[in-house]
């Protein structure tokens, strides 16, 4: 996996390697960032910043971590820095509240689901959102968050139980 990118880097073809990397990872990184920042336009901006950092650091990539782990770590750190900066800059206004993920009305209202999701601890919320964004792939979520698959499962279980309990209490 990603051997082609490593080869291009070893041939000092940074721009070509970046092009392949961008094509392969842009959607995944966007979803990861979105699961953290919770707003698609901000997520797009943070995704651009993440790829800018990846581009800047690409020549220095030493291959110790797998390329995907390296990319996801940069994206996660960029998202967290962005959230911190936002937190210090202003308190969330109503307009800036995390946007709903999709314009659909499922069995539970989207506001209710949004409330349940925001009530979860950060790591559980990220895991559960990514799980659905990544088409229920525990393996992919584990790779993106650099967690063992068992930990991802355990976060999923806890999040589901907590959400169901809160739902029960509200009804």
């Amino acid at each position, binding site marked *: 996996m990603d051997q082609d990118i490593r080869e291009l880097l070893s041939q000092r073809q940074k721009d070509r390697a970046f092009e392949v990397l961008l094509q392969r990872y842009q959607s995944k990184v966007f979803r990861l960032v979105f699961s953290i920042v919770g707003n698609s336009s901000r997520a797009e901006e943070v995704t651009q910043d993440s790829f800018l950092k990846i581009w800047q650091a690409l020549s220095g990539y030493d291959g110790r971590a797998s390329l995907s782990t390296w990319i996801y770590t940069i994206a996660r750190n960029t998202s967290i820095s962005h959230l911190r900066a936002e937190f210090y800059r202003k308190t969330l206004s109503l307009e800036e509240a995390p946007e709903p993920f999709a314009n659909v009305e*499922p*069995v539970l209202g989207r506001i209710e689901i949004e409330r349940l999701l925001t009530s979860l601890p950060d790591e559980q919320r990220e895991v559960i959102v990514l799980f659905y964004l990544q088409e229920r792939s525990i393996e992919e979520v584990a790779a993106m968050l650099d967690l063992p698959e068992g930990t991802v499962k355990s976060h999923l279980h806890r999040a589901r139980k907590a959400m169901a309990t809160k739902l029960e209490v509200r009804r």
Partner: protein
Amino acid sequence: MTCQAAQELILDSLDCRIDEEQQIRLESHIAQCEMCRSFREAQRVLDAALAAHCVAPQLSPAFRSKLANKIRGEKRQALQEWLPDLLHLGGGIVATTACFLWLPVSPAVVFTVGIALTFVSYVLQTMFRFWLEDLEGL
């Protein structure tokens, strides 16, 4: 099967496939346990709601061009940062070469003085730039 084990299996079945034997044991427990039946129902409703809610957003068509602009800006900035150094070095080489060609002094002296002056003026220029950056930062 205990209720706790049954509920873990229910959650497992939402995250990944459970095997046939586990499925049979779970169904037989649920058939007799009202609490686990409603737990499964609640989890199924929640799962469907989450699946409908968490739909992956798409990157806008302008994503690539905006990123390309940012990278171009970064390249320009890097060049701008190096430009004074490159110009200084180029100027030093040109001046030393001109002195070598036109001054009636031995080449060794010209090169030694040229290198020394280039180095000293580079240090002064760098100090001046740091001083200006400090002023901007105030």
